[in-house]
């Protein structure tokens, strides 16, 4: 009986650890959005900053990025969020 309890405990703890290690980060659901056509019309403007925040393989497996885009690690927003002029239009793209 004691063995069963011990193994059940190990099982639950393992599941919790495994799930915790794979939990995705929380993302804002209500950020304003624009279509790719709208963005296309703005490309080249000095008032536009495009930040490539693709994560995981979406970022590492792609050869392409939007013209003039700068990289921003979505897992470390604090390190780059303050770098850009807030009066400009900042566009983040993730796919």
């Amino acid at each position, binding site marked *: 009986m004691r063995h069963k309890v011990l*193994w059940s405990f190990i*099982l639950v703890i393992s599941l919790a*650890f*495994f799930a915790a*290690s794979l939990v995705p980060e929380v993302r804002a659901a209500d950020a304003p959005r624009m279509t790719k056509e709208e963005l296309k019309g703005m490309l080249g403007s000095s008032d536009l900053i495009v930040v490539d925040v693709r*994560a995981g393989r979406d970022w590492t497996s792609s*050869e*392409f990025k939007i013209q003039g885009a700068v990289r921003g690690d979505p897992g470390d927003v604090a390190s780059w969020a303050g770098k850009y002029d807030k009066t400009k239009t900042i566009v983040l793209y993730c796919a």
Partner: protein
Amino acid sequence: MVCPETLALAGNAAGRIGPAFAGALAAAGILHGLTAWNLGRTGDAIGRRASPEEVLEAGLGGAWTGVLLAARWTLTAGLATGVCAGAGFAFNEIFYHAFPNFAFAALIPAGLGLLRIRGRDLAERIQVGAVAIALAGLLVLVAWALLLPDAFAPGETAQTTPATGIRTCLLALTALAGFELALEPGEGNRPEAFRAMVFALAIGALVLIAWTWMAAAVVPASKLAASTLPHLLAARRIAGPPGRTIMGLVIISGSVAVVNALMAGASGTLRRMSRRGLLPKGYLSEATRVRIFEGFSAAWILGWLVSGMAGSPNLEVLIRAGWILWLFHYGILHLAAYRIQKTTVEGGRPPGLTLSAAAAAGYAVSSLALVVLDPSPWKVAAAAIAPALLAVPAVRGYIRSGRGGERVSSASP
């Protein structure tokens, strides 16, 4: 495994430590070669060409096959998801922009799953073709690079810390891991399956060494070290747009090969474990179980893809954890071989016993070092330990329940 993952690893490593990574690959090849030799030798000691499951069961007890199960299914979840995503991008960006990358990524496990459910023969022929295309593509690029007039002598490396250098060398072990999946077609029963395993290891090591050397010779180290696609960078530098197309073919065929091999390994482990009474048979015939396991391995990868795991940074944690678990299982395989050799060989100390112990220790230390030196050590440790802690007690509990019936003898197929 010659796949986009190992090419990226080799490219980054060539940037960080230069051609020294080729030396690390050679050393890794020797250690893995020792594992292949020990697996074959232990098979002989227990009376047949044994599978890793049998060696673990005979040497340490059935519960330890849980580590193998955990390693194979964890790496299949992470690596197959990652390479499918990469192949999707390669097809979309290099060959056909209108075809969605995710659809192509999902086609690989879905197509291979259907083929494997219908029968493994065609999937095995596709495996040979895919590996041949990937290796031929890389060799063409290496030969092309030799003709470049302005290739510089490798030697320059990006600035790295000693810890990064050590970790990079240890990662060579992961680049060549998985060679024993070459046993899957014959389930280890045919002598040629063992020759195929050693051949796969030797060819994989030689091609990766040549590629690492060439990448370090044609692309500046800092660029190689920082790129997420160093193999595409090198291919473009070597041959321009044709080089990119060739590398696209290498990426796609390498992805098909590695996903097929991982599916074969994952389903094969379930198949052999259920046959040996280490997992439930579910009152099903062998043929039905095979189809279920093949379908489950494809659904497993598709599930991870559909869950959006490919876009999550946690995928990298899962892959690194899978590799570490895989290396650790090589260590316990040596430990099992050590115990079998010690008990079955009569008349003094069998040859190679010290080598078995040293290899087991080498894999254990390497696994631990890879956890400690990882950028996210706690996450990787949790993702590596948890699947094993789930699988080992589950298998142990099933064996103890007696529902698996009498153990199948080691000498039976």
